[in-house]
C-alpha cells in the first residue's frame, strides 16, 4: 500500500465535486492499487488456479473431473428415511416452525428474543416485540447466539486436570472440600463470576454466602465498566442530545431501545432531533451525529466542567470554539435536551454530567437515574484475590462464566495464582484459557438449553426458557449452585420455578408463570422509579491528572467479539467492523495527522509500549479519530478459543492494568517497518464515486424536498430493447431509510442466519470472496480530520430491467411475475457473467465449497426452507423468498390477499431503527408504497434504467445554524 501524505489528501478534497464521498484513504488518494482493485470484477487469482499447474496435470484433472461429473449424473437418487415421532407433540405441525420466547443475556442483562424452532431444532433468533430491551429488534450478539449453541468446539465434558471426568466425580470431590469450608465459614473460598442480574441465581448466591459467610465474591466483567451509575434515557423525548463518548445507539444493554426511539425522533420535520457527539474513536453513534467533534479522552473529561462554566456565563478562552453555540442550543432546549456520559468516563465527569442534566431540568423528563443496582455486587477486587491466591490464603476458587486467565489485567498474574490453588473450578461454555489452568472444568449450558431468568436494563424480569435438550453434557449454573448448597439431584426448571413460586406467592401462580414463560417477560415487573436522590455536590475543579503531552492509549471492547467471548463465532468474526470493515482481526487505530506526525504508515506493524509492557499491532489510519491517541480493541490474541477463534489478531489485555483498565496517557509507538496485510471488505464492491448516498441539511430539504431525485436523469421506462414486463398481482419492493440506519450491521448477520450463508474465512475475504448478501457500505465525506460518516446497506436491488438476467446463458437468473429477480441454483453453471454485469456488485459466488457438510451440529442450525448452495453456484439476496412464499401459502389457504406487513425479511425484522421496510408496491396503501412517494426516495444508479425495486430515502442532517462555520 502506498503511504499517503496528509497534505496531498487534503488538496484532493476541494478539487472534487460538491459532495465527495470516499470509502478509504486509498480511494481518496486514488492510488494505482486502488484503481486496479476496482477495475477488476474479481480480485487477483479469483479465477485462476493458485498453484503452478503443468499442462499435463491440468489435462489429468480435467479428465478426472469430467468422468466424475458424468458419473454423478448417472447415480440413482438415494433413498432417504422418514422418521416420524413416536408420540407427536401437541401444537407441533411438521413443516411449520414454532416460536418460543426466551432471553439472551450479555454482561448479565437480558434482551428478549423469540426463537424459531423447526421440529425441536432452534434455527433463528428474532427480537421479542413485547420485551422492553428488544422491541422486536436484535443486535449482532443475539443473532450469533444460535451459531454459538451449535458450535462444535463448545466444551462437551467435565474435565479434571485436563482429562475427561464426570459430574459425579466432581460432586464427590466437592463434598470432601465442602466440609472443610463449612468449618471456618469459607475463609479460604472465593467465587469469581461474570455479570449476574438473575434474581434466582442471586438468591442462590445469597444462600451460599449464608453457608460460607467468609467467602469472597468477585464480579469480573472485563468489557463493562461496572462502576458506572445506571442511567435510563428517554431518547425520544429529547430534541437535543449531547453524547460525551457515549455510544448509546450501538452499545450497552439498552441500545436497541435507544436506537428505536432515536429513529422515531429523526423524521425530518419540526420535531427532528439534533445530535452532538464528542468522542475519541468514531462510533456508530458518532456517525449519526449532526455535529461530531473528535477529542482525546483527557479533553472529554474536562468538557463537562467547561459546559457548566459556559452555562453560568463565564467565558473560557480554553474552551473549543464550538462549545458556546452548543451550550446555547442546550439551554434553548432546557427540559427537552439530554446529555449522556460515556461508560468509560471517570466518576467525577459522570457526576458533573448528571448535575448538568439537573440544571437543564432534564432529569425526570428525558433521563432518570435509578438508584437500585441490578447486577450482583462483589465483595472484593480481582487484584486482591490474586494476591491472596498467590500467598496461599485462598485455596478454593470457583470461576463462573468468566475467563480471567485471558481477561485479567496484565499486572495481575492470574494464571500463576490459579495454579497455586488446590481446588479450582471453572464453569463455562468453552474449555478456554482459564479452564486449562483449573483443576476442574464444568461445561456450562447455552442459554437456549437451560431455564433461567435475568433482568433487562430497566429492571424487567425476563425468563430464559430452553429450546433444545442440552447438546453436550452441560451443567446449569443453577444446578451447580444447588450442589454448593448440598441439594442434588436438582434440575434448573424446578429451581427457577420454585424460586418464583416463593416470590410471587400467589394462589394463581400457575397461570402467572405460564403467561410469563409464554411472553418471555413478567408483566408489570418494573416498579415506577422513585425520585432519585440528588447527585453528589460538585467537586472543586481538579487539575486534570491525564493532562500532559504524548500519546494516549484507549482500550475498548471489540464491536463484534466483545471481550473475547465470541472469538469462536465465525459469523461475528466475518462481520466487517463498522468503521474499518476489518474482519477476523483487530488493529491499532490512529488519526491520519498523528500517524503522519510520527512518521507511521497505514498497515505498518508497530510496537505499542505502555507502562513497561509492549505488544505488536498493525496500524490502521482511521479518519475521524481524535489526534494523539491510539485505540486498541480487546478480544483477540486468544490461545484456546477453539478452531475458529484461536490465534487471531493481537491481545490488548497485555497492555491493560488494574488501575487503568481503559488506558491513559504515556503510550509510546515504535515503528517496525514491517507491513501487515489486513483482511478488510472496505474497498470491495466499490461503485466508484457515483452519487450513491444522498443527503442534505434540514433547511435545504425544506427548500428543495426532491433534492435526492435531481441527481442525473432517470430514463423513461420504455427506453429499453427488452419487452416490457407487467406486474398484475403483487410487486415486491423495499425501501431503506438512510436517515434511520445506524450502520450497526445486524441486517448482515440476520441475513446470514436466515439464508444459510456460509463463513469463508480470513484468506478468502482477502481474495474478495465474502458471501454476505447484504453489506453495509461506509463512506466518509469532508475532511480527513473531521469527516462525516455515512452508512448504506446494499442488498440486491431486484431491478425491473435487471442487467444480470440478460447475460445469463442458461437462464439461471430471471424475473418472476412479482418482480423478484430470482436465482435458480440448480440451473447455475457458474459463468459469473451476471456478477460481472451487476452495477451494484451484490452477487456472490461460491468459489469453493464453503458449506460445512460434515459437522453434525452445524447441520441442525440451517434453515430448512432455504437451499444450501454448493461450489460453483452464484447466489444473492432473494428478499427472503421463503418468507414471501410462506405468507403466500397462508393467505391463499385462507382465500385472501397477503396483508401489508405480513412479510418481513430477516434484515428488516432485525433492524433496531426500523430502517428497512418491505411490501407490495402495487398496493398504494402499503408502507413501502408510501415511502416510495416520499420526496426523499431515490433509486441507486437509476440513471442506468435498471429500475431498482430497492430504493433509498435520503439522509437529512439537522445541523445547528450557528455552527456552520466552526
Amino acid at each position, binding site marked *: 500500500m502506498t503511504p499517503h501524505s496528509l497534505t496531498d489528501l487534503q488538496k484532493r478534497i476541494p478539487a472534487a465535486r460538491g459532495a465527495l464521498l470516499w470509502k478509504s484513504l486509498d480511494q481518496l488518494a486514488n492510488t494505482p492499487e486502488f484503481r486496479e482493485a476496482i477495475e477488476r470484477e474479481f480480485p487477483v487469482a479469483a479465477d485462476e488456479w493458485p498453484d503452478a499447474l503443468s499442462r499435463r496435470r491440468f489435462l489429468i484433472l480435467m479428465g478426472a473431473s469430467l468422468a466424475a461429473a458424468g458419473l454423478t449424473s448417472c447415480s*440413482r*437418487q438415494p*433413498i*432417504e*428415511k*422418514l*422418521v*416420524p*415421532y*413416536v*408420540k*407427536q407433540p401437541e401444537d407441533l*405441525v*411438521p*413443516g*411449520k416452525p414454532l416460536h418460543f420466547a426466551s432471553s439472551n443475556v450479555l454482561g448479565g442483562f437480558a434482551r428478549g428474543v423469540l426463537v424459531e424452532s423447526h421440529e425441536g431444532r432452534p434455527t433463528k433468533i428474532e427480537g421479542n416485540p413485547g420485551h422492553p430491551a428488544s422491541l422486536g429488534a436484535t443486535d449482532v450478539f443475539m443473532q450469533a447466539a444460535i451459531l454459538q449453541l451449535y458450535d462444535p468446539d463448545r466444551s462437551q465434558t467435565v474435565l479434571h486436570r485436563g482429562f475427561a471426568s464426570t459430574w459425579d466425580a466432581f460432586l464427590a470431590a466437592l463434598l470432601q472440600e465442602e466440609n472443610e469450608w463449612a468449618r471456618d465459614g469459607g475463609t479460604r473460598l472465593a467465587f469469581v463470576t461474570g455479570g449476574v442480574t438473575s434474581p434466582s441465581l442471586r438468591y442462590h448466591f445469597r444462600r451460599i454466602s449464608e453457608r460460607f459467610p467468609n467467602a469472597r465474591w468477585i464480579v469480573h466483567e472485563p468489557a463493562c465498566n461496572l462502576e458506572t451509575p445506571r442511567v435510563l434515557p428517554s431518547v425520544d423525548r429529547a430534541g437535543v442530545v449531547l453524547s460525551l463518548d457515549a455510544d448509546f445507539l450501538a452499545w450497552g444493554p439498552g441500545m436497541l431501545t435507544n436506537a428505536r426511539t432515536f429513529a422515531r425522533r429523526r423524521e425530518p420535520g419540526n420535531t427532528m432531533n439534533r445530535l452532538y457527539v464528542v468522542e475519541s474513536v468514531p462510533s456508530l453513534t458518532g456517525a449519526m451525529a449532526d455535529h461530531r467533534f473528535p477529542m482525546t479522552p483527557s479533553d472529554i473529561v474536562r468538557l463537562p466542567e467547561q459546559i457548566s462554566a459556559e452555562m453560568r456565563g463565564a467565558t473560557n478562552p480554553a474552551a473549543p470554539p464550538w462549545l458556546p453555540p452548543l451550550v446555547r442550543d442546550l439551554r434553548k432546549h432546557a427540559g427537552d435536551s439530554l446529555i449522556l456520559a460515556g461508560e468509560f468516563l471517570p466518576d467525577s465527569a459522570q457526576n458533573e454530567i448528571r448535575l448538568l442534566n439537573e440544571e437543564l431540568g432534564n432529569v425526570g423528563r428525558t433521563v432518570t437515574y435509578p438508584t437500585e443496582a441490578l447486577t450482583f455486587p462483589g465483595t472484593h477486587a480481582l487484584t486482591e484475590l490474586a494476591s491472596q491466591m498467590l500467598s496461599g490464603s485462598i485455596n478454593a476458587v470457583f470461576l463462573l462464566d468468566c475467563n480471567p486467565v485471558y481477561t485479567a489485567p496484565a499486572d495481575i498474574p492470574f494464571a500463576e495464582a490459579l495454579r497455586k490453588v488446590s481446588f479450582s473450578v471453572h464453569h463455562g461454555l468453552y474449555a478456554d484459557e482459564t479452564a486449562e489452568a483449573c483443576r476442574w472444568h464444568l461445561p456450562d449450558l447455552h442459554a437456549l438449553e437451560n431455564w433461567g431468568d435475568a433482568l433487562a436494563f430497566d429492571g424487567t424480569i425476563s425468563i430464559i426458557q430452553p429450546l433444545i435438550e442440552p447438546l453436550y453434557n452441560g451443567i446449569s449454573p443453577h444446578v451447580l449452585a444447588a450442589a454448593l448448597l448440598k441439594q442434588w439431584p436438582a434440575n434448573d426448571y424446578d429451581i427457577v420455578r420454585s424460586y418464583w413460586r416463593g416470590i410471587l406467592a400467589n394462589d394463581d401462580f400457575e397461570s402467572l408463570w405460564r403467561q410469563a414463560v409464554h411472553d418471555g417477560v413478567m408483566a408489570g415487573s418494573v416498579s415506577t422509579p422513585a425520585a432519585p436522590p440528588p447527585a453528589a455536590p460538585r467537586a472543586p475543579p481538579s487539575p486534570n491528572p491525564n493532562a500532559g503531552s504524548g500519546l494516549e492509549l484507549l482500550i475498548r471492547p471489540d464491536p463484534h467479539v466483545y471481550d473475547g467471548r465470541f472469538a469462536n463465532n465465525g459469523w461475528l468474526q466475518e462481520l466487517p467492523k463498522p468503521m474499518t470493515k476489518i474482519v477476523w482481526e483487530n488493529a491499532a487505530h490512529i488519526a491520519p495527522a498523528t500517524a503522519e506526525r510520527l512518521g507511521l504508515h497505514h498497515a505498518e506493524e508497530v510496537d505499542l509500549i505502555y507502562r513497561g509492557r509492549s505488544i505488536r499491532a498493525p496500524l490502521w489510519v482511521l479518519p475521524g479519530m481524535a489526534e494523539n491517541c491510539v485505540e486498541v480493541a480487546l478480544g483477540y490474541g486468544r490461545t484456546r478459543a477453539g478452531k475458529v477463534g484461536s490465534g487471531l489478531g493481537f491481545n490488548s489485555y497485555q497492555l491493560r492494568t488494574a488501575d487503568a483498565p481503559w488506558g491513559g496517557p504515556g503510550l509510546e509507538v515504535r515503528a517496525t517497518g514491517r507491513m501487515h496485510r489486513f483482511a478488510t471488505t472496505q474497498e470491495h464492491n466499490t461503485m466508484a464515486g457515483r452519487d450513491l448516498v444522498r443527503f442534505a441539511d434540514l433547511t435545504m430539504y425544506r427548500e428543495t424536498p426532491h433534492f435526492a431525485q435531481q441527481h442525473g436523469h432517470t430514463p423513461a421506462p420504455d427506453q429499453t430493447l427488452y419487452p416490457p414486463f407487467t406486474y*398484475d*398481482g*403483487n410487486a415486491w419492493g423495499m425501501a431503506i431509510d438512510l436517515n434511520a440506519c445506524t450502520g450497526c450491521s445486524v441486517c448482515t448477520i440476520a441475513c446470514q442466519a436466515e439464508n444459510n450463508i456460509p463463513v469463508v474465512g480470513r484468506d478468502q475475504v482477502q481474495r474478495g470472496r465474502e458471501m454476505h448478501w447484504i453489506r453495509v457500505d461506509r463512506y466518509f465525506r469532508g475532511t480527513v480530520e473531521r469527516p462525516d460518516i455515512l452508512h448504506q446497506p446494499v442488498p440486491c436491488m431486484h431491478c425491473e430491467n435487471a442487467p444480470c438476467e440478460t447475460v445469463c446463458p442458461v437462464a439461471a437468473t*430471471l424475473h*418472476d*411475475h*412479482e418482480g*423478484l429477480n*430470482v436465482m*435458480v*441454483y*440448480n440451473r447455475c453453471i457458474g459463468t459469473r457473467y451476471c456478477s460481472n454485469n451487476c452495477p451494484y456488485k451484490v452477487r456472490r459466488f461460491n468459489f469453493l465449497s464453503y458449506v460445512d457438510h460434515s459437522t453434525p451440529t452445524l447441520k441442525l442450525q440451517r434453515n430448512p*426452507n*432455504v*437451499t*444450501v448452495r454448493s461450489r460453483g453456484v452464484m447466489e444473492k439476496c*432473494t428478499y427472503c*423468498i*421463503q418468507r*414471501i*412464499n410462506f405468507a403466500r*401459502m397462508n*393467505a*391463499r*389457504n385462507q*382465500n*385472501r*390477499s*397477503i396483508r401489508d406487513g405480513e412479510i418481513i425479511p430477516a434484515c428488516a425484522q432485525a433492524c433496531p431503527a426500523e430502517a428497512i421496510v418491505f411490501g*407490495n408496491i402495487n398496493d398504494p396503501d402499503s408502507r413501502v408504497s408510501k415511502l416510495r412517494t416520499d420526496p426523499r426516495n431515490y433509486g441507486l444508479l437509476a440513471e442506468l434504467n435498471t429500475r431498482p425495486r430497492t430504493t433509498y430515502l435520503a439522509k437529512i442532517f439537522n445541523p445547528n445554524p450557528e455552527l456552520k462555520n466552526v
Partner: protein
Amino acid sequence: MKNDGQIFPRWCNTLAWASIAGLILMGGTMICLLAVVTRSPYLTRVDIPLEQPVPFSHEHHVGGMGIDCRYCHTTSEISPFAGVPSVETCMTCHSQVWKDAPMLQPIRDSFLSGKPVAWNRVHDLPDFVYFDHSAHVNKGVACRECHGRVDRMPLISRQETLFMGWCLACHRHPEGALGPREAVFTPRPPDQSEIRSWLQAHAGAPARPEMERPPSVTAQRLTDCSACHR
C-alpha cells in the same frame, strides 16, 4: 509399388467412413439409451415398491377399511408437509387389533422403547424443490392426482416420475387436475353420478371461493421459478 510412400492402404478410406458413421450412430444410441434409462423405472422408481420396516398396506387400510387420508397424514391441509403418522397413531387401533401380529413387532418395540421407526421415503423431491401440500389440497388437487390409486397398492410406490416437466405440465394447465374440494381425499376418481350430483349442488351457486384466485395471483405466477425454487 503403386502406392509407394503411402502408409495406409486404400481400404482405410472405407474404414474411416465407417468409423465416422459408427461414431454418429454410437453417439445417437448413447443419447437414446440415456433418455431411456433416465425415464426407466430403475431411476424414477415408478411402480417399484420400497422395502419398509413394516409392510404397511394402503390397499387394506384405505381401500378395505375406508380410513380417511387425514387420519394419518394429519397436516396435509395446513402444512407443506403432509405428515407421517406417529407410532402412537398406529397403536390407537393396533393396541386392540392384531396386537400380537409378528408383522407389527417393530411398531410395538418403537412404542415401548420410544425409538422411532425409520420408513423409507417413497415420494422424495430434490432438496432444492419446495413443494407445499396445503396449497394443492386446498385448491382441489386430489391426492390421487399425484399419488395414484393408493387404495389399490398393497405396498406404496411412486405412480409418477416427479420430473420437473411433469410438475410444469400441470402448473401450465391446472384445470385438468382441479376437482371439487370435497373430493380431494377420495381415493378413487368420482363416477358420473357423483359428478352429476356435485354439479347439481353447485348449480347456480357462485363459483367456489377456493377456486377463485385472489387478485394478486396471476396464471403465470404458477410457472415462475420462485413458485417452487428458493
